[in-house]
Structure formats: structure tokens, C-alpha cells
């Protein structure tokens, strides 16, 4: 351990840009993924503006559009936003790209690559990842993939527009933006695979002396499970994406059925392909992917709760067991996205059962985290507020999954706004809120200074109120039957009774947007001017708090030795209410 695999870099490029240091790569991922979250969110703001007022009213005057509408019309031009009203093609592009960006360029890189890279080696007491160069390659392949992804907006006909799910055959006959989407996905998936191998090897082989698996912090466990999910599920989508690419550019017909009509005649390449094959390949990744979005968030919440309740986490083994079980079961639930797809109907009962089963370990996780609060001394700092908010928010997301995973009620709710509300509660007020909490929690370790608490609480309040105003009304719209992916729901009269909620959603989105301003300011201001943090500003027990803030190249001044479990808080008979893992006595 003492002789570090590579020497400390000295030049600017080697140190900050093409770095092989896990901490620099983690921060690179952090900043890049936050940028993409902002991009994806901005697209959604534009879509919500469209959905709030999809059509010109009686007072519409093409000569005088008003300040906001006029500016939007000017910015996006005649093709995309004529008179400030969104063209359906542009709506479909933004819809597909919002999903793609938020998931593959935003939340996954943030939860897995940013926090995993920065925190995991520190928590296990390693001096770096097992394969530092692979780690750097992973970031740069992701970076190139995301640039390629964004470039698709410049393609003739615009970006991908067949939904983030890219269902064939619509995606196969879509404009060239879809080809670019596929190439970018292959790159992004490759990046994830490089990262996941690294995480698995690092966790299994690079642990400090005494860091047995039973003493591993929960965050490391979830990263390990997540990495296995990525490693096993992503290659399936990668293969699926390559097949779709071949359908588009090489004249194959994996997904194009016989006699498919395009325009007024039979599509020239229509063979004996199966549109459902794509859905199976896609969801075989995309359901485990949900847990890739969620598990790191749950790990972060566990760490923050343990630290700020000042007591051992409730049911460490039950928690870890639940995470492993969730990971395993996530591979056998994918077809619950396909109850009405036309797949063999008798298979649905199997997937209803597996889906209901996976809710049990999720309930166990929530129970353990809630019970951890009992008998605690709760400190309400900013990271803790985010972690606590995760519990009811994920609760709503998880519970609303019940009528969707249960086939008889899914028949009605499938493809409605209820689904949108459900998975956003899991990913946005759920995962993303936890990831924001993680940012406040580990910021002092990354930059040696704490973020401002007052601004943090402002950010927290605005984000939570805004997000709930956005996502809760979607349950009302979905229950009334409003379908997702409609550029103008008012063209269908059955949607009108719930159209009013779209103005509430826009208001919520604007509140969420404004609430991010104190966060962005706080982040950069605190890097240089925040309150100085020592090694262990939260008085926590895990190993990342036993090295300097920020940690030097190689992380630990002396190689740490682990003597006890990760959450030894308020141990009877000891004066201090925390007992770090690396303290000899």
C-alpha cells in the first residue's frame, strides 16, 4: 500500500484534466453530470411551458407575442417554436433527449461515477482505484459520448425523437438523429462497463487491513451491487443498440416486421424482424437501471443518517441483504414494462409476482432507515435534511409503483402521466434529492471547506416544494387518463378536465429552477470562501474522514487499519459519541 502505483502529477493537464487520480475523476464526473442535469432540466422547463399553454388563446396576437413568448420564438426559431408554440417534432426530440440526458448523462454518472469514484476508495482505505488508467478512460469515453449525444440536435431532422426508450420500428425509420443517439449510447455504455469492472475489483481487492466485508460501509455495498448490475445488464442494451444501428445503416431487419408500410408502400428492408425483441433487450437493461439510479442514493442516505443520528444504523445486515436481494431480483422484473406490449399474455403473471416480490426488500430498506431514527440525537444540518426528505419522497415513488406493477390496474394506468409521476418521485425527489444531500455531505472532503448552511437550507426548501408541485399533480392527470408524450394534450377532449394542473406543474418547475440558484452560487463560493473544514467536520466514523480534506495524492498519510464496524456511534463507556473505524482504541 505504501508505494503508490503512480507518482503525483505536477503539470496542470495531468493533474486536473487527464488525471488518473480517482478524486479528480470523481469531481470531473460531478461537475459534468451537474451540467447535464441543468441541460436536461432546461429542456423540461421549455416542455412544461408548452404544456401549460399548448395553444394560442383568444387574445393571441402574432404581431405582439409578449416578452417571454417572443424571446422563446426568437431563440428556437420558426421550425422548432413557431410563434413560441412548440412543433410536435421538437417536443418529441426534447422528450427523448430529456430522458436520455437525465438518466445516462446526469443521475447515473452523478450517483455511480462521481460519488463512487470519490468516496469508495476513501471509504475502503485504498490509495486509488484498482485501474487508474481505465478510470480515466471511462470518464473520457463518457465525455465523448455525451458530446456526440448533444451533437444530434444538429443532425438533419433534429435529435432522437422516439422516446428515451427508442421503441422500434418508429426509431428505425426516424431521422438521422437516432443513428447519432445509438452511437452515443454505445460510447456511454462502454464507459459504464469500464467503470463497473473497476468498482468491483477495487471493492474486492483494495480494502485496507481489517476492512472485512462485514465492516464495509453501506455506501460501498451499494456501489458493489450497482457495479454488478451495470456489468451484467448494460451489455444487453449495448448489443441491442448495435442491432438497431445495423437496422438503420446496414440494411438488416432485426426489429422490422414483414410487410411494414412506410409512407404508402412496403418499407424496402421489411424482413421478419420483431419489434418486441427491442423492448425485451431494452428493458432487460432499463429495469436494473432503475436500481442503478436508486441504490447509490440509498447508500448516501444511509451514511448521512448514521452520522447525523449519532447512533448505529438499524439492521446493517438486513439493509445489506436487502440491497443484494434487490439487485438480484431486478433482473427478473423487466417485462412489467410490457404487460400491454403484445408479448405472450400468460407470461405476465410471472412478472407481476416478481415485481410484487421486489417491493419487499424495498420496504425493508425504508423500515431500517426509519427505525434508525429511534433513540437518536438528530442533527438537522443540510445533508441530513436532504437525506430525511428522501424517505417520504421515495415512499411515494415506491408505493405508486404498486398499481403499475400489478397488471389489472396497470392496464388503465400504463402510458399515462401516473407513470411519469411514479418514476420521477423515485428519481427526482428521491434519488436526486439524496445525491444533493451527498454533495453537501462530502463537499468538505472534496474541497476542504463546508458549504454554507443558510443557502443550503434555502436550496432544500425550494427544491422540495417545487418538485412536489411538479410531480404530485401528475398523479391526478394520470388517474384521469392523460397519456404521456403528448405535445398538446388539449387536442384530446378527455384530457381537458385535468389540463389545469399543467399550470401548477409549470409553477413548480419554475420554483425548482429558482431554488437551484443558491445551490450553484453556494457551490462555487464555498470552494474558495466556505468555512474551513478539518479532516472530520461531521465527526463521522468511516475512513474517508480519517484523511486530510482534501486528501492528497495517495489519500492516506499512513495506511489505515480498520478495527471495527462502520457505524460505532454513542458507544457506551466512551466519552466521544463516535468511534472512527481506524482508531486503535
Amino acid at each position, binding site marked *: 500500500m505504501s508505494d503508490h502505483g503512480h507518482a503525483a502529477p505536477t503539470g496542470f493537464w495531468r493533474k486536473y484534466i487527464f488525471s488518473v487520480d480517482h478524486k479528480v475523476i470523481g469531481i470531473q464526473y460531478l461537475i459534468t453530470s451537474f451540467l447535464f442535469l441543468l441541460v436536461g432540466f432546461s429542456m423540461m422547463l421549455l416542455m412544461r411551458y408548452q404544456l401549460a399553454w399548448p395553444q394560442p388563446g383568444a387574445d393571441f396576437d402574432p404581431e405582439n407575442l409578449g416578452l417571454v413568448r417572443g424571446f422563446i420564438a426568437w431563440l428556437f426559431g420558426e421550425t422548432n417554436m413557431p410563434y413560441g408554440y412548440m412543433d*410536435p417534432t421538437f417536443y*418529441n426530440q426534447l422528450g427523448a433527449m430529456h430522458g436520455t440526458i437525465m438518466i445516462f448523462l446526469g443521475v447515473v454518472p452523478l450517483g455511480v461515477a462521481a460519488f463512487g469514484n470519490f468516496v469508495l476508495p476513501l471509504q475502503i482505505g485504498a490509495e486509488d482505484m484498482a485501474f487508474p488508467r481505465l478510470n480515466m478512460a471511462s470518464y473520457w469515453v463518457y465525455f465523448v459520448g455525451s458530446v456526440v449525444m448533444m451533437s444530434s440536435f444538429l443532425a438533419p431532422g433534429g435529435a432522437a425523437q422516439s422516446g428515451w426508450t427508442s421503441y422500434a*420500428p*418508429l426509431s428505425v425509420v426516424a431521422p438521422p438523429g437516432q443513428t447519432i443517439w445509438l452511437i452515443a449510447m454505445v460510447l456511454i455504455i462502454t464507459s459504464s462497463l469500464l467503470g463497473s469492472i473497476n468498482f468491483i475489483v477495487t471493492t474486492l481487492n483494495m480494502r485496507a487491513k481489517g476492512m472485512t466485508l462485514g465492516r464495509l460501509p453501506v455506501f460501498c455495498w451499494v456501489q458493489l451491487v450497482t457495479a454488478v448490475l451495470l456489468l451484467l445488464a448494460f451489455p444487453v442494451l449495448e448489443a441491442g443498440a448495435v442491432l438497431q444501428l445495423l437496422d438503420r445503416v446496414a440494411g438488416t431487419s432485426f426489429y422490422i416486421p414483414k*410487410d*411494414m408500410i412506410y409512407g404508402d408502400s412496403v418499407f424496402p428492408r421489411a424482413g421478419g424482424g*420483431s*419489434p418486441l425483441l427491442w423492448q425485451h433487450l431494452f428493458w432487460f437493461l432499463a429495469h436494473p437501471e432503475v436500481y442503478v439510479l436508486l441504490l447509490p442514493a440509498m447508500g448516501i442516505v444511509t451514511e448521512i443518517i448514521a452520522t447525523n*443520528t*449519532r*447512533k*448505529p444504523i*438499524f439492521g446493517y445486515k438486513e439493509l445489506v441483504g436487502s440491497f443484494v436481494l434487490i439487485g438480484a431480483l431486478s433482473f427478473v422484473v423487466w417485462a412489467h414494462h410490457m404487460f*400491454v*406490449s*403484445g408479448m405472450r*399474455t*400468460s407470461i405476465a403473471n410471472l412478472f*407481476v*409476482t416478481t415485481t*410484487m*416480490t421486489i417491493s*419487499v*426488500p424495498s420496504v*425493508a430498506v425504508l*423500515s431500517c432507515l*426509519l*427505525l434508525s431514527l*429511534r433513540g437518536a*440525537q*438528530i442533527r438537522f444540518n443540510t445533508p441530513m435534511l436532504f437525506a*430525511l426528505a428522501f*424517505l*417520504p419522497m421515495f*415512499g411515494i415513488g415506491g*408505493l405508486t409503483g404498486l*398499481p403499475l406493477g*400489478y397488471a*389489472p*390496474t396497470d392496464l*388503465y394506468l*400504463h402510458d399515462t402521466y401516473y407513470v411519469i409521476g411514479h418514476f420521477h418521485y423515485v428519481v427526482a425527489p428521491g434519488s436526486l434529492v439524496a445525491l444533493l444531500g451527498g454533495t453537501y455531505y462530502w463537499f468538505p472532503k472534496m474541497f476542504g471547506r463546508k458549504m454554507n448552511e443558510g443557502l443550503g437550507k434555502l436550496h432544500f426548501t425550494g427544491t422540495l416544494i417545487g418538485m412536489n408541485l411538479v410531480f404530485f399533480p401528475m398523479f391526478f392527470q394520470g*388517474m*384521469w*387518463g392523460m397519456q404521456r*408524450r*403528448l*405535445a*398538446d394534450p388539449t*387536442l*384530446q*377532449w*378527455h384530457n*381537458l378536465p385535468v389540463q*389545469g394542473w399543467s399550470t401548477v406543474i409549470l409553477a413548480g418547475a419554475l420554483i425548482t429552477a429558482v431554488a437551484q440558484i443558491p445551490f450553484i452560487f453556494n457551490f462555487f463560493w464555498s470552494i474558495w470562501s466556505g468555512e474551513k473544514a478539518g479532516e472530520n467536520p461531521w465527526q463521522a466514523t468511516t475512513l474517508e474522514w480519517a484523511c486530510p480534506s482534501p486528501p492528497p495524492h495517495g489519500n492516506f498519510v499512513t495506511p489505515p487499519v480498520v478495527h471495527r464496524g462502520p457505524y460505532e*456511534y*454513542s*458507544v*457506551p463507556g466512551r466519552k466521544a*459519541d463516535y468511534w472512527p473505524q481506524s482508531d486503535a482504541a
Partner: protein
Amino acid sequence: MNEEPGFAMGIPPVAVSYGAQLDSLMTLLHVVMVAIFVIWGVYLAYCLWAYRARPGGRAVYHTAGERASFIPDALVLAFEVWLILAFGIPIWANLKQEVPPVGESLQIRLVAQQFAWNFQYAGPDGTFGRRDVALISASNAIGLDDKDPAAKDDVLSINNLHVPVGKPFTLLMTSKDVIHDFQVTNFRNKQDIVPGMTTTLWFEPNVIGKYEIGCAQLCGLGHTQMVGNVFVEEPADYEAWMKTQLELKLGTADASRVLEDARSQASAPGRAERTES
């Protein structure tokens, strides 16, 4: 309809035989979900207040009850197993795995396309005319073969589906181009329509009225505008509509003859059902 943008909560009125049962399940699930959420929420709020940090306070190191924490897991599991066995499997079998027998239900073909719904009625002879993709053109949307005698009395209706109240009907659905999805909110059931295969959907509408068909699967730039209507009518009104359609297609004299032939055939003994899917 003259709906105004509003802030409705709840679910639209039900107009299908199995809808009431599905709606009670929907209600049951939501009652249980809200109950679980409230229990969690109250417990969370209590903990946040009762266990807030106090100066000089110290947390409890050991917390008993690891075994007891499995009780909620077990309750949830038992509830879900009951849901699956008592309702899930039988309802699914009734709605999706079986369709009403051909003789008892009206068979209607649906050929979906970007961005329209083409309904094909077999007409008085009860037999669908042959379709051939080679015949598809701007004037023949579904490629119906006019040379097929069975096609003569077939009635085509674009975006408007007429059905009699109180009688099951089965949609035999396929798509010309990309995937679509037939959704009528008041009917509580939906199904993707996939090119290259036939999927089915059956309903027994029980409330007379006009209901909107929407496409629930993203199908391209006109996805939003891919709408239609279901007219659930008194059987006599439905028959009258069918007669008008036949007269429009064949002329009054031929239409009467076709209807007469069908009536005499139906009363003839030993008539075999002829349908194709």
C-alpha cells in the same frame, strides 16, 4: 365535447362491464398505499420531534427489535400474494388471456396507422374480406381486396367505432407501420398494436355514449392528433348505422339484398361460423 381545462381529481366514469371491479381494485390499492404512507409519515414526524438533538444528549447505542422489523415486510408480502392470487391471475385471464367466443361477440378489425384508426366490419356475411399489403394505396388504406366476395359487404370506418351497448365486441388489431396503442379511458383497458402481429382487446360497453380513443404509444409527430371516437349505441341505432354504411357503399338495392341474404342464412339450420383473425 365542451370540456373546459380544469383541476379534476379521480377517475373518469366507467362504461365497460369489467370496469367496476377494476375500479374497486384501484381504490383498494390506493387506500392501502395512503394508509402505509400515513403510518410511515406519522412515525417519521414523531421521530424527528422526539429525537431531535439536545445539548448534552446522547443517542441510544443498541436498538432492539431487529426481528420485529420484518413484520411490515411480511405484511406487505402477504397482502401482495393475496392480491395476485385472489384477483390478479383471474382478472388477467378474463381480460387478456381469453376473448369472448366468436358467436357471442362482434368481431371488428382495427388496422392502425400513422395517424388514424381504420375499423373494418365484416358486414352481414360475418366474414372479413381479404387484405393484401400490395393493394395498399392512398384510396385503399388497409389494402382490402375488392375481388374477394367476402369483402363486398365489409364496412370501413375511419376513426369512428360504432358498437351496440350490452354486447361484447373484440378488436383484432394490427398496425401498418409503427406501434400504436388503443386507449379509451372509460373502458379501463388498453393494448399495444404492433406491426407484424395481431393483438386483441375486448369490451362489453354498458353505458350509451361517445368516448374518445387516444393513442397511448408514441407513434411520431402526429401522435397527439391520433384520436377517434367510440359510439356506444342502442342495438337498433347501431343496426341503422350499419345499414346506412352499407347503402353508402353498395347503393340501397344491393344493401337490402345483402342484408336479406344474411338474415335468411342466419335462420338456416347448421350454419357454420366463419371468421378469420
